[in-house]
């Protein structure tokens, strides 16, 4: 079993909203998670872990939020503007850096991890780049030649447990049914 990128993106977006993000950032979360998945990286897991943490710790904290900070970089179209902050799941920054990278390649560093990214790809392929705590993140221009990763047109079966976590968070956006809403719903048989 695998998931289409479209349904994973919609699910990730709903989950982010369920975890308390504004709609616009929830859309960015869906984009980021599936951009990583399409390159074989653990976007769904990173987002699920981050969102669970967000819910447990009382809501989105913009200064630690990779989606909030990543969106800001993307908006400015300049990765060098990334402020010196400590972020949850910094891997979620990569899609935004990539979007804003233009013709350059950028190197992002946290803990003992380092990734290079440009407009289309990421190097190295490393699915263990998740982090349990906030990490201080550095960024610099890089001369690295990126190796093209395999393309993953689906979200792979081993993401199941994190898809389920996102599904649970997405449920927070659904209104409990009432008799009244059922009666006012759409349709019936002839």
């Amino acid at each position, binding site marked *: 079993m695998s998931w289409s990128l*479209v349904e994973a993106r919609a699910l990730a977006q709903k989950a982010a909203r369920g975890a308390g993000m504004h709609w616009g*950032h929830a*859309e960015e979360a869906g984009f980021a998670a599936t951009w990583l998945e399409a390159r074989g990286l653990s976007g769904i897991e990173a987002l699920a872990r981050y969102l669970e943490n967000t819910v447990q710790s009382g809501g989105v904290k913009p200064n630690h939020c990779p989606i909030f900070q990543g*969106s*800001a970089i993307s908006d400015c179209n300049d990765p060098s503007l990334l402020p010196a902050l400590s972020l949850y799941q910094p891997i979620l920054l990569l899609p935004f850096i990539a979007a804003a990278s233009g013709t350059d390649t950028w190197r992002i560093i946290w803990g003992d991890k380092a990734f290079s990214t440009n407009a289309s790809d990421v190097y190295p392929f490393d699915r263990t780049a998740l982090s349990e705590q906030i990490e201080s993140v550095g960024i610099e221009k890089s001369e690295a030649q990126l190796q093209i990763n395999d393309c993953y047109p689906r979200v792979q079966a081993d993401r199941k447990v994190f898809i389920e976590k996102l599904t649970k968070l997405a449920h927070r956006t659904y209104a409990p049914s009432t008799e009244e809403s059922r009666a006012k*719903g*759409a*349709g019936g*048989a*002839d």
Partner: protein
Amino acid sequence: MTQEIHFENENLPMRAPEQVMRLERMGSFHQSRLSFMRVLLRRLKRENWQFDRPRFDLDENGVGVATYRVKGPQRTYTLVAFAHDLPDEMRSDRVIAEAWDTTFTLVDGEPSEEDISRLSQNVPLQEAGRISEHEFVLSRANRSVRLFDHVVDVLASGKQPDAEKIDATGYLMRTTAVYGSGKFGAADRSTWANREEFSGSFQPELLSVWLIRTFVIDLVEHLARMKGGDRAVRLDKPLRRRLGIGNSTGLGMAPFLINHPSLIHAWINARETALARVRLVAKIDDEIMQDFGQLVERAKINTENWSSEHALQVKKVADLLSDLTKLSEILKTELLTNPYPFNGLYEWGVKHLSLEGQEQLVSLMLEPFPDLVDELSQTMSADEGGQFRINGRMPLFELKDLVTEFYGWTNLIDFSSPEAIARVWYTSEEKLEPRLGERFEEPIEAYEQPLCPGRDARRLHSDLRKWQDGETVAAFLLKHPEHRHMVRRIQALTSNPYGEIRDNTIAAEMLPIDLLRCKLSFFGATKFDPRSDRWVRITMYQNAPYPDELAFIDPDDCAYPALTK
């Protein structure tokens, strides 16, 4: 056919988005040459697609599996149909149903035995099952209780059903959902979007529905044979053609038009471009004039056969009939012999016809001009990802101007009044379907979906006023992340002016059926039959050729009923 055409694209007399994108007008749209079912059948005919039925394993109760294979110039697709034994009391058109008479999937290529076995474990479960990247569409259909058993019985006894009875319902089965584009595990749209045969919109979905129509006839004839044995007869072809596939569409479809502005722009822009081109035809010959007169009479027959019990629709149909009568009268005058005849006719229509009649006229005007119109179907899709990123370097004065340009109409709405914000779009926990609730009567506001761009634009505007013109969108969004979705939308509208509905989608008097009608008209539905203000029944492919007739019947000639001699 001769026609003199003088147009340059940049000078087309396009109708303004503020005129077109009003719910009342959108709720009056009719199918046209650009409707997706017609686009599909034109292609299948032009490219001489081949059809067969490799498998038909149904038992005496009509339970089993059948496959329908279609071969085009480059690729093959297969509809896999599962027929079930559904007790009458379980038959429901609601999305929340859990069992259906028939379930379907469209497979990329030809399914193996293993594929069919896997699909048989999943497709009958619909939303509760999973399909894979090798499948494009998931769908199901239920019998029309009124007609299905009757037709089986009559055929079993060796007779043909009454045409009147067939026309009264128009279909033997109706689909209650047709899912595509990555839903429930299906292949992402991006995997097939570049295939020539699926250019445009919703082509895999509508290919499935067309094949389902054939399966339903095969199922009925099979059951008649099981019941009547040698006495049973097949359905006469002219009668068979009068049967389409019914469809019940509820609120689930309504948010689509709001959630996909660049796609909606592409649809509307194609139709408006076609209209503008036809208005610029300088002169037409007698043949076109005569054909057009006949077409109006055929549209009249279609309208006379259009029944609805919904008060609003009854009035609209009556208006339409009177409009079409006025139209046939005006065609007896010299109007079409004047220069730019269809421009004159269009302008006459604006003055004398209801919105329903005006939009019918627009659709009719496109019919005589395949050379001007049909190629535009290739423009009716959108790369939505390309519009996703926000330009944060845009100065706020530009954003303020865009808000005024696209949402100036909201100045006339008092969003502090309860009537203006009476509704809430939300998703129910029960079956994850979109619903429309009452803000002041139900505890649902916390679950509100962002499907009210007018109100959200006003909120954005009110915060923007506190900021200096020279500051940037990026700086504004750091302080106001709650406006991010609207800023994205507004920036995307600059290249998609028809992408926004210029009406309040949460107003007390808003009619969701207007949204449904607009979308279904682009699919190619005829005779919309609203059953309330929030769901509508339609018939798809009524009068269209079946696969075994496509080679010798022009599907475009079937869009309106034939004139009776």
